[in-house]
């Protein structure tokens, strides 16, 4: 119960802080207009040159470069107005406790004569506002369309309007629960789990539920549905930080799988302007390049772009040492990759019966 009040308190405080930041921007713009000055936004630069890796907090952060978006500049006037509109619209969402999605924002803009050319353009403006306010879009009540799922013995308590105080257990529904705005804002009340398993693919997530992995390994299973969305990464972080559960990651045996694990662990360059989305202690269980040979997994050859991706990642400071570095090298040597489904060759339950326990054992030494 102590957790709950804390959580609610911080959430409340953050909401108030965001609203006051937004209002201050509103007042500044208002005064500029009134006094014949061209209003402008100062945005931390997200250009590649301004993204640096912070070894201390083990994630990418933005440097000190700032960009000015001014209504004085004709070529910026449109995007300035888009940003002003988004601040205005987010203010409404947050005040009224309503949720939206990236796509919804794109469509909502039309009602206000704000013409985004396509959704990537509006997505970009959302990131701009994140940078301006130093708040993740989840705090703006804006969520991605695609959602990943969670399953396991975890009791939560909703805080969304109309459901305040209502509790559910996330093992009640075998398909799992969508990690949406309601779940993201819910309090994490109680769990018997001792482990969180993040898995890349929906198919295996279902298999894990069917195979009672949550019971066998006392775990909460999270489907990341490919590269984990930020709400999912945020949940993983809370499970780790608030409930003290270790997080392990299972992904395909290729360079992309390795990077899915890395992003959960230490964030992405795309979200360098944000904090608190990482799980620095998360462990990548597999599938490692060395597992491909060890477990004699059926493989397919890498494509040109797979290989190019390896070379790219080898320049990333996070891949300069340890297992991360070693696995990249082995992938490059093999020039072949294996999917999680490859274990089916040895029976449908092989991955849960044999591989998972072995890797969990192995991870203890990491």
């Amino acid at each position, binding site marked *: 119960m102590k957790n709950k009040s804390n959580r609610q308190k911080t959430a409340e405080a953050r909401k108030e802080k965001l609203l006051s930041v937004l*209002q201050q921007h*509103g007042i500044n713009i*208002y005064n500029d207009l009134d006094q014949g000055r061209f209003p402008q936004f100062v945005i931390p630069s997200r250009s590649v040159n301004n993204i640096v890796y912070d070894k201390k907090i083990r994630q990418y952060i933005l440097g000190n470069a700032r960009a000015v978006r001014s209504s*004085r500049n004709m070529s910026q*006037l*449109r995007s300035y107005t888009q940003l002003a*509109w988004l601040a205005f619209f987010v203010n409404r969402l947050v005040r009224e406790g309503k949720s939206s999605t990236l796509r919804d924002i794109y469509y909502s803009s039309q009602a*206000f*004569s*704000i013409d985004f050319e396509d959704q990537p353009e509006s997505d970009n403006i959302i990131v701009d506002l994140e940078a301006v306010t130093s708040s993740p879009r989840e705090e703006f009540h804006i969520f991605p369309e695609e959602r990943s799922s969670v399953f396991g013995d975890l009791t939560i308590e909703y805080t969304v309007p109309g459901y305040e105080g209502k509790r559910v257990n996330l093992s009640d529904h075998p398909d799992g629960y969508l990690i949406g705005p309601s779940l993201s804002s819910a309090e994490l009340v109680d769990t018997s789990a001792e482990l969180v398993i993040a898995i890349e693919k929906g198919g295996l997530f279902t298999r894990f539920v069917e195979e009672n992995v949550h019971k066998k390994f006392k775990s909460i299973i999270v489907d990341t549905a490919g590269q984990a969305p930020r709400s999912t990464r945020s949940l993983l972080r809370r499970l780790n930080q608030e409930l003290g559960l270790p997080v392990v990651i299972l992904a395909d045996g290729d360079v992309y799988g390795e990077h899915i694990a890395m992003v959960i662990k230490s964030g992405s360059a795309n979200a360098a302007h944000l904090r608190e989305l990482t799980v620095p202690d998360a462990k990548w269980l597999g599938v490692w390049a060395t597992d491909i040979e060890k477990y004699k997994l059926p493989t397919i050859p890498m494509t040109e772009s797979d290989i190019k991706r390896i070379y790219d990642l080898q320049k990333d400071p996070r891949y300069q040492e340890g297992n991360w570095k070693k696995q990249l090298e082995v992938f490059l040597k093999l020039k072949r990759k294996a999917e999680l489904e490859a274990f089916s060759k040895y029976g449908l339950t092989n991955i849960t019966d044999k591989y998972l326990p072995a890797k969990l054992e192995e991870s203890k030494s990491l």
Partner: protein
Amino acid sequence: MSKETFSQISPSEFFYRNRDLAGFSNPTRSLYTSVREFVENALDACDQKKILPDIHLSIKAVDAEQSDPKHYVLTVRDNGPGIDPKHVPHAFGTVLYGSKFGLKQARGMFGLGATMAILYGQITTNKPVTVRSSSDGKTSDEFVMLLDIQKNKPVILKHHVKEAAKTGLSVSIVLEGDYSKAGSKIRDYVSQTSLITPYATITFEDPSGEKFHYPRIVKDMPPPPTIIKPHPHGVDVETMRRMIVDTHYQIPPVDNKMIEKIRKELGQKKNVSAKEILERTQKKWADLSRPVRTVLAVMSFLNVDFEGLQKIRIDDIDVANKKITYWDFGESQTHSVDLDPESPYYKQLSNTVQGDTLVTFLTKRFQRVGPTTAEKFCEFAKFKPERRIGSMTNEELVKLADALQKFEDFLAPDPSCLAPLGEEPLSKGIMKFFNPEFASVLQRSASAYSGFPFIVEMGVAYGGDIPASGLKVYRFANRIPLLYDEGSDVVLKIVNEMDWSRYKIKGDPPLVIVSHICSTRIPYKTVGKENVADRPELERELKNAIQYLARKLAVHMSRQGAADMAKKRANLYAKYVPLISQFATELSGKKKEPNYKQLIKMGSELEEQIQ
């Protein structure tokens, strides 16, 4: 030995056999070429007499029901000076009869084309040509004629005289043509001719009865070209040989008239001996005229009296080899007599026959060559300045012609033989024709290739009524539109080599280029005279002209761009500032909107900022 028969053919027959060369290869092309020839003759005739041309062209099907190719009546009528009725039958009934042999710019050459068209019409339809001409403005002579192809002579079928109100010429032929195919080219030809001849009124009535009327845009005619001497660079061995031949003081014909003249000058009535004649000559020498001196000099070497002189024909006086060759009618035999260089008559004869000195020849017979240049040239060519050109051997002539080509200190050819349209008429023509948003014209100063002077005139037009369907080039040479064989033309090559994006021209611009090359000899690639070859001198002039105009266009484009930008800017601020105000008002929690009007105004007036 094989038996061969050689027979001479008349020029008419030659052209009949080679009509493809002159642009009469098929009914489509022939109809188009005939239109061209008659219209261009009419314009040339008016130009020469400084009459503002009023040309009427009509094409009518003989039987409209028939399908193409079929017989058409082609009539071209002008308000030119007309032709003296005496000359009409020969002018239109003989091939190679014309007055266009001088060195000056004209549309047609030699006046071949019109007769070719008449010939073609007669061949394909067997119908006569009808010519109506009035040269005095009071009476008009109408001739209906056929051409006797073998004899190259006109056959007049009818001739009558009527009253006339004004001078002018009308030619009407019946020919096989294909208007359904040639129509678009003919319409293009007429409209483009009106563009490059803005001082002319041109009316075209097509077979369907539709009238295309192009009234004159300017009232002033450009100054007519003058006939000039050739430039040394433009002369080859053969041309020079001909020039030398007629620079000779010819041996005067010895006929009764000449003998009378000699008797008179010597003051001798009676027949006297050769000896007596020479004695008399020595006494009277100072009073004798040059032809008489020449004949007497010849007589001195042949030692003949007047009677003897009448029996022979002088064939050659070869000063270089000191020989006179003559034909004796009585003996039917050629004789030759040595010239004694010691004789006092030798100098007289050699001066006459050898013609001018090289320096005199160069200064008298070529344009823009003065004595100083001529002397310099002689040194360059390694000929003595006082060398008589009549005494030159064949080899020396070749050497001379070669040196004329290579000597670089001749002044550029005299462009006074050219008749460019002029910037103002060209500009007016372009404005009227295209109604563009921007136009600029340029006349380059005269230049020359191989001794032929030329002038490039060019215009660009942009926007306005011009459709945005990409760049279009209108090519003209000596005020004639060039419509065929566009792809291989030098103008198009130059235009295509331009990097238009450097001049702020992108995509499919509403852009027109009008190019006019004037020259005494346009370097056509083919006999069809539709595409101009790429001479380096010509290329350079075209390039300079187009680059100059493109720069002007670029200035216009950026000015236009700035105006567009200001308008766009005003629109943007008028649209976005109220929106920003609306959002800021709610965001700040205020009730009343801020006073943002001044900011819209400021935004509209801002200069473009460079990021």
